[in-house]
């Protein structure tokens, strides 16, 4: 008879707590020696006001040297405290956030030292924009994986959503139709994923990768075959214009960042809230999570396991499709080959980093979106980093996140395992 096991710690060759503490110390050292000592002469100036804003916020001028050194010292101190295990009172996540913030601020100071002012609000706006497909992709992953199906095909869903969004919006001249089609396109790929994963029990990781290859090949083929020759009709959509929310959008600094963007940002807000409430506060969510953790138990109380999985995977596809549409009709307009360039995989990492919760995934997605935005903005201010390395930034950040801070917790227990009645 098997009960629920209490598992002793399996052999881990890496003492996580000490490693994280070590990372804090190392970040602190980088703060001091690289961002502090090696900074160029001159202050880093951050501007907070957009041109034409009603309220003007003064610039912030920081001397890279002292700022970085102070933040670095703080990080080192926190690192040692963390290693000492007396931090029972202080939440570990808070410490991590403080150290990360210190690193980022030092980094920005160093990047901007003596150069043209860094437009902070622009940077944050870019962050929000870049995070949208990541958030929607990560939510899609949550919906699928919480019911027990691994969705590696987020990348393909983004791609198909971008493609359909651009083509339909361009052909029919309707952005809303394009948005809707993008969602459906993601859903169609999700149906393929669902059928092959649930009914034919193909390994879900392989399946996801293959579907991504298929989506890339299909959109690439159709791009060459149809979109290039008929560009004006098929690949010249309008884009959604930003909508400013009255009152909230006028708050200095925060307003332009959070409340003045295309419809996609607001859809993302709604999606995060809906998925979070849905998964953790409703009957629907309880049943979904039961299916993902212990499908046999769910089956024995009469929950339809396979139907739940189908439904959630398709739902996830619809959400990811919207994220894909944001890449074309939510930003640049026309479709280009492999326009998603790995963001589906970054969204996956965000979901894992966020421990399969909508809020956590969103936080992680924002972090990755920030790295994408940094890459762009730092290029324009002439930061002392080669542009190719800046472009690597989001991917390197993902590697560090997955390796360093994730830990092995904790996918839904039945994630990736096909359900077979015995």
């Amino acid at each position, binding site marked *: 008879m098997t009960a629920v096991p209490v598992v002793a710690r399996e*052999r881990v*060759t*890496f003492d996580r707590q000490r*490693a994280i503490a070590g990372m804090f110390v190392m970040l602190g050292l980088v703060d001091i020696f690289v961002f502090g000592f090696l900074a160029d002469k001159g202050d880093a100036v951050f501007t907070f006001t957009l041109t034409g804003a009603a309220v003007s916020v003064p610039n912030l001028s920081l001397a890279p040297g002292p700022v970085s050194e102070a933040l670095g010292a703080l990080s080192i101190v926190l690192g040692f405290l963390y290693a000492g295990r007396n931090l029972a009172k202080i939440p570990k996540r808070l410490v991590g956030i403080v150290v990360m913030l210190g690193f980022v601020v030092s980094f920005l100071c160093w990047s901007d030292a003596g150069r043209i002012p860094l437009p902070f609000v622009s940077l944050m706006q870019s962050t929000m924009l870049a995070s949208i497909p990541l958030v929607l992709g990560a939510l899609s992953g949550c919906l699928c994986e919480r019911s027990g199906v*691994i969705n*590696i095909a987020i990348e393909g869903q983004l791609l198909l959503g971008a493609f359909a969004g651009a083509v339909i919006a361009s052909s029919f001249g309707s952005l809303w139709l394009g948005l809707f089609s993008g969602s459906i396109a993601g859903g169609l790929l999700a149906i393929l994923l669902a059928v*092959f994963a*649930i*009914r*034919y*029990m*193909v*390994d*879900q*990781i*392989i*399946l996801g*990768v*293959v*579907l991504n*290859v*298929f989506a*890339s*090949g*299909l959109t*690439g*083929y159709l*791009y*060459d*075959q*149809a979109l290039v020759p008929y560009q004006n009709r098929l690949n010249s959509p309008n884009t959604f214009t930003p909508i400013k929310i009255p009152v909230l959008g006028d708050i200095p600094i925060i307003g332009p960042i959070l409340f003045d963007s295309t419809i996609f940002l607001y859809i993302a807000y709604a999606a995060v809230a809906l998925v979070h409430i849905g998964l953790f506060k409703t009957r629907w969510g309880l049943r979904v999570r039961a299916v993902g953790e212990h499908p046999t138990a769910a089956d024995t109380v009469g929950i339809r396991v*396979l*139907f739940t999985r189908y439904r959630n995977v398709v739902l996830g596809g619809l959400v990811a499709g919207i994220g894909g549409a944001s890449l074309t009709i939510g930003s640049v307009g026309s479709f280009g080959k492999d326009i998603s360039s*790995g963001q589906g*995989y970054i969204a*996956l*990492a965000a979901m*894992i980093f966020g421990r399969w919760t909508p809020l956590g995934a969103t936080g992680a997605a924002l972090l990755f979106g920030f790295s994408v935005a940094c890459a762009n903005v730092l290029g324009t201010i002439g930061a002392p980093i*080669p542009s*190719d*390395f800046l*472009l*690597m930034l989001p*991917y*390197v950040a*993902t*590697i560090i996140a*997955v*390796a*360093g801070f*994730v*830990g*092995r917790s904790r*996918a839904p227990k039945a994630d*990736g*395992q*096909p359900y*077979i*009645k*015995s």
Partner: protein
Amino acid sequence: MSHQDAGPEGNEPTTLTEPEDSAENPPDATKQVAAGAGHPKGAETALQLLNAVLEGSSAVVTFLAIVLAIVIGGLLIAFTSPTVLHAWSHLFSAPGAAFSRAWDVASSAYSAMFEGAIVNPHTVSAAFHGGSIAAIFNPLSETAVNATPLILAGLAVALAFRAGMFNIGATGQFIGGAMIAGWIGFAVHLPMIIHVVVAVIGGFVGGSIVGGFVGTLKARTGAHEVIVTIMTNYVMEYLILFLLGLAVFRAPGLPNPVSPPVANNAMLPHLAGATLRINAGFLVALAAAAGVSWFLNRTTVGFELRTVGANASAARSAGMSPERTWIIVMVICGGLAGLAGASVILGTDFALTPQIYGTYGIDAITVALLGRGTPFGVVLAALLYGTLDAGSVTMQAQTQIPVDIATVIQALIVLFVASPPFVREVFHLRRRRRVEEGAQVLAKGWSA
């Protein structure tokens, strides 16, 4: 939707006793029929063959999967062609024209592929009239040239599969190998044979560094290799861009980011004269396949690798160290993908470009899956995909159909090969229950 049949993992209800003399042989109709007196030998083998087809054995399923993918590919080609669409808009007034148009477009595409990959009948007849004989073999040579990096990269992915890992990072490892091999090729001066050998070894080393990084990360931190390898792919793609911007890597005077050309001593020698592109890289690939096969099946480390891939928990209980195995495997696999990079830069391209990695890394995954994770299967699958790749170039030249269609067909092939139940259903074959090593990477999820 419920499954009464036990799935690929052979989940048996835990409370059943099986008869003591159990050996779960599927009912073998062949034996019963052939056991009857008076059946000649030929009939017996014919019956066995028929049975194999009906029961949907591995080889049959693979073949049918390829057929299905080609059919769907053909439909896609036909129905995205403007002329076909035009003909179908008049379906009811001229149905014959619609169908024949569709057939024409698809068949001309595939025959162009055939001419590009296997043999072009025109060259054969031209040879009889004094044309070049070598030209007859050009398509086959192109197929081999395309297949070479696919064999090597496919081995890199397949070997990782056998160890239970998903090596999506063949692209990044390829780039690492190409970088080092290329640099040795143009920056260093060595005598004739030594130069190419050192460059090839350098390719292996370059790839194994990237692979080793991934393996070490997985072993020390548990980071899932799917995400890490995909990320390192992008990192390496930008790294090579960056390097080609540096003076030390850049060919002087040219506007495009290209490296200096590789020295003659470092080029892989041609195998059939200078007009055909087939080179020693093909032999390196075949040798690597043989080596991997020996390694996998006849060495202690290979045994550990297979055990860790089949059941890491049991491997641990038997004293093996999955962590050590992961690192070793990723180093070797990285090296194999690095060899692929070396074979391209030293065998056909002769200079580093930002796009040198092409689609080899992604194709390698499909090759490994189609080849079922065995070295011999990888070689066959790579030859098939080499055929598709070589053929699609000619197809694009002749019929203007974009080469991406090859990717679509390749992906479909793998999708169908990975789901035998689907293929069996489509072709109405009987089910068969088997637990095969190396045949499928069984559904596993995120944990190793």
